């Protein structure tokens, strides 16, 4: 697998590597269910993750829509003559499961497990990740952990189902649901909450190991399996994002593991770690929990930022601006992210000195994120921008991440956080960064790599319309929540004062609109799988190595490792037609702009 070309100057990729259609591709190579469940092929593992992760996204989304429907009226139980305690408990279950499923089973695994597995080895010109069997293990562990959550879900649904039909005391498996909030705060979770805490935390514990093992795998792959000529600073930025993510995964997730074990121990064996009556401290739980969960949000966003770096470059036909800054800022975010967990605990009673230190460091962690945003906009400047569906999501990301990031500063500043804590302002903030940013990057990445992974092109106009609907729906859903939060609307409340109802109504309308948009996206993909046009090897004109193989890739990825080039030297390709996509430029490449001139590489 040695490289086939010298690397002093960019050489166009050899045509033979990618124009030769393989006898079969990774999707058709082995047949049968067993060949999928026991596969060692990173691409198949990525596809399996995709199916599971998207299913959990659907479940979490259904819970979200249920919540938003309940919140349409300020006094839903009274208005519809429902049993108040039952309704409020059901509401608690809904938001807890919405949060827990979305965080642990969707957002954290999505980009690393799906796109990381599918694309990372191909971007390296490698045949697989460093530890393929460990990769399969990660997948199985994720399935097992997810099953625990399904068990809790079932328990909750059955319990309330029976209760609503007049049988409130039926003894059920699944622990009758989970009502602690996804943050499982002690002492409620360790004492009085519904019993679903134990299987749910064990499920999160198991899923955490999936995350850890994926991190181990990616770190080793990126260190050892880079091809000759691909130094760290010739790596695509998506891989820098995954590398930084993996560092956080291996350092932070074990702390969550031990925290969850302590919750289970306290719940089952009544050890007193978090019980103040026997010398424990519930605030200690918060410290442990947020020590993981704050870095976790960077696990969520760093891969997304990596995707955006790829999308912005390719769809503005420009070399990324400030490669080194973006690479280093990924590492900076990963490291600084470990120092700020206390900003979730400003009102927990910790000392003012502690509060101030965390607030100060929180401001510093905003800096690398801003560096990235400025580099992306500098990349866009004087670029030749094409508004394909992935680009729409990338542009949406930049806007929504800016909003989410700036509102994070309100929450990171100590004095403004105190009135905003536990209000809808916080809810809106994290949905802007988790959904508006991460989900948009995820959808952008899915559309971008869809032709590569499946060999089919989706219908572009439908994709663009769906992106717009999702964008509008998202903003309608969450922007009113900022205002409601500043007016004092608390989070996690099923009934609320009437003055907030109008905000909730806008929000619910937006949620349904966004749901509609996402269903159009799903339909777009399903239709493309069945009836899409055949995708060329390089539909977008990217220069990272995955565009040097066929769409879909053969099961072995590459016969020979392709020549390693600057991943953003887009001038090596020229556009031919919709069917053939971009092909290597055989004529003399256009003269590169003199260094310092920030212009597009147009063809």
């Amino acid at each position, binding site marked *: *697998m040695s490289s086939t070309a010298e690397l002093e100057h960019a050489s166009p990729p050899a045509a033979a590597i990618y124009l030769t259609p393989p006898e079969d591709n990774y999707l058709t190579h082995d047949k049968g269910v067993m060949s999928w469940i026991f596969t060692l092929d990173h691409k198949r593992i990525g596809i399996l993750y995709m199916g599971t992760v998207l299913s959990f996204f659907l479940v979490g989304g259904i819970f979200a829509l249920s919540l938003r429907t309940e919140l349409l009226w300020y006094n839903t139980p009274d208005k519809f003559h429902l049993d108040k305690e039952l309704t409020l408990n059901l509401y608690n279950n809904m938001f807890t499961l919405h949060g827990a499923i979305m965080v642990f089973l969707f957002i954290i695994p999505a980009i690393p497990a799906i796109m990381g597995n599918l694309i990372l080895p191909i971007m390296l010109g490698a045949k697989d990740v460093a530890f393929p069997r460990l990769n399969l293990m990660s997948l199985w562990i994720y399935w097992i952990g997810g099953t625990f959550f399904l068990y809790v879900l079932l328990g909750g649904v059955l319990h309330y189902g029976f209760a609503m039909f007049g049988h409130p005391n039926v003894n059920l498996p699944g622990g009758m649901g989970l009502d602690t909030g996804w943050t499982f705060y002690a002492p409620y979770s360790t004492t009085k909450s519904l019993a679903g805490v134990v299987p749910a935390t064990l499920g999160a514990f198991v899923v955490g190991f999936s995350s850890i*093992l994926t991190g181990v795998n990616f*770190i*080793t792959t990126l260190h050892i*399996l880079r091809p000759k000529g691909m130094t760290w600073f010739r790596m695509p930025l998506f891989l820098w994002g995954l590398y930084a993510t993996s560092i956080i995964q291996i350092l932070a997730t074990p*702390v969550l593991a031990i925290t969850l*074990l302590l919750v289970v121990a306290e719940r089952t064996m009544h050890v007193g770690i978090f019980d103040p*009556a026997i010398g424990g401290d519930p605030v200690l739980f918060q410290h442990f929990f947020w020590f993981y969960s704050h870095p976790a949000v960077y696990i969520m966003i760093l891969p997304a930022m990596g995707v955006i770096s790829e999308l912005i470059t390719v769809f503005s036909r420009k070399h990324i601006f400030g490669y080194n800054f973006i690479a280093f800022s990924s590492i900076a975010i990963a490291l600084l992210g470990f120092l700020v967990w206390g900003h979730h605990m400003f009102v927990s009673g910790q000392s003012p000195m502690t509060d101030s230190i965390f607030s100060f460091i929180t401001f510093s962690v905003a800096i690398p994120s801003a560096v990235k945003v400025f580099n992306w906009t500098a990349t866009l400047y004087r670029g030749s921008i094409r508004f394909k569906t992935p680009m729409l999501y990338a542009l949406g990301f930049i806007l929504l991440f800016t909003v989410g990031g700036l509102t994070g500063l309100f929450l990171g500043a100590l004095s403004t956080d105190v009135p905003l804590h536990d209000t809808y302002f916080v809810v809106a903030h994290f949905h802007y960064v988790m959904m508006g940013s991460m989900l948009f990057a995820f959808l952008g990445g899915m559309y971008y790599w869809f032709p590569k992974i499946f060999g089919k092109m989706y219908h572009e106009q439908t994709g663009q319309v769906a992106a717009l609907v999702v964008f509008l729906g998202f903003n309608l859903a969450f922007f009113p929540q900022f205002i409601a939060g500043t007016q004092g609307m608390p989070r996690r409340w099923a009934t609320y004062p009437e003055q907030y109802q109008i905000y909730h109504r806008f929000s619910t309308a937006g949620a349904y609109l966004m749901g509609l948009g996402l269903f159009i996206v799903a339909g777009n993909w399903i239709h493309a799988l069945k009836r899409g046009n055949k995708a060329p090897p390089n539909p977008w004109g990217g220069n990272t190595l995955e565009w040097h193989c066929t769409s879909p890739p053969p099961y*072995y990825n590459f016969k020979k490792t392709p020549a390693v080039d600057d991943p953003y030297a887009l001038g090596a390709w020229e556009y031919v037609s919709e069917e053939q996509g971009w092909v290597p430029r055989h004529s003399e490449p256009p003269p590169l702009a003199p260094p310092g001139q920030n212009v597009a590489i147009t063809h």
Partner: protein
Amino acid sequence: MSTASDTHGAAAVAEHGDGHGHVHHSPHLAHHFDSPEQQFMSAKLGMWVFLGTEVLMFGGLFCAYSVYRRAHPQVFEFAAHDYLSTKLGALNTIILITSSLTMAWGVRCAQLTQLKGLKICLVLTLMGAAGFLVVKTIEYTNKWHEHVWVGPSNRYYVARPPITYASLPPRTILPDNSADANAGTADAAQIRPVASGAGGLNSNYANPPETVFKEKDLTYDQLAPADQKNVATFFSIYFLMTGLHGIHVVVGMGLITWILIRANKGEFSSEFFTPVDLVGLYWHLVDLIWIFLFPLLYLIK
């Protein structure tokens, strides 16, 4: 890590036309690696990264230990002195360090293809691990008999008064900040004022429990009443830390047994000894964690 499954087996290797020209290579070389050296480097790096995660996981417990030790030093002094046997702890330490020695020796034997030496060393390591677990069992049984088990079966466990909805103050939708919501309730007497000054994590620093120091060893009655309620927490921490460590020892025994079985089949030699190396690393970490546990729990008085 040895061969991948046949999905990418020898036939695929032949059709690959690998750049390095030859098709014959060690059966242990996985197809997606260029060379055995690269594969070995990967395995080592992966193992070290994984060990890092283990350190972080135990780190959480060490953190809990430090927080509670700092908050309740007398509790730790009393309970550790009265219930933890330094001699047994020291014996365990010696056993584990020796087993680490035999494990490292075993890795060396594998590197030099001294298969008999490898098997002997692995067996000795296993015996050490078993010995550790025997001593641990003795300790745990003692604790059971002295009624200082984990949780409510601990003689020092103080049951908490149950919180009922009736006992909580009435809730208003918009908080009325004019009065302290807890004033006049049954809980008010138990709520300590918040430490606001150079204080720290909790109000124990504002109102430290008063304990009289004596020349002789601390007894239970000498502890402040507030501290007396906290003794059970020491045992919780003790059992959690040593228990989690013990689980890792059992897992380690499983791994060493697996390596022993493979060694008996003749799988290891100077060309390929990666699994022995990696299990050795794991075992050294287990030993290292104990080396921290022992002084923190048993020795600091």
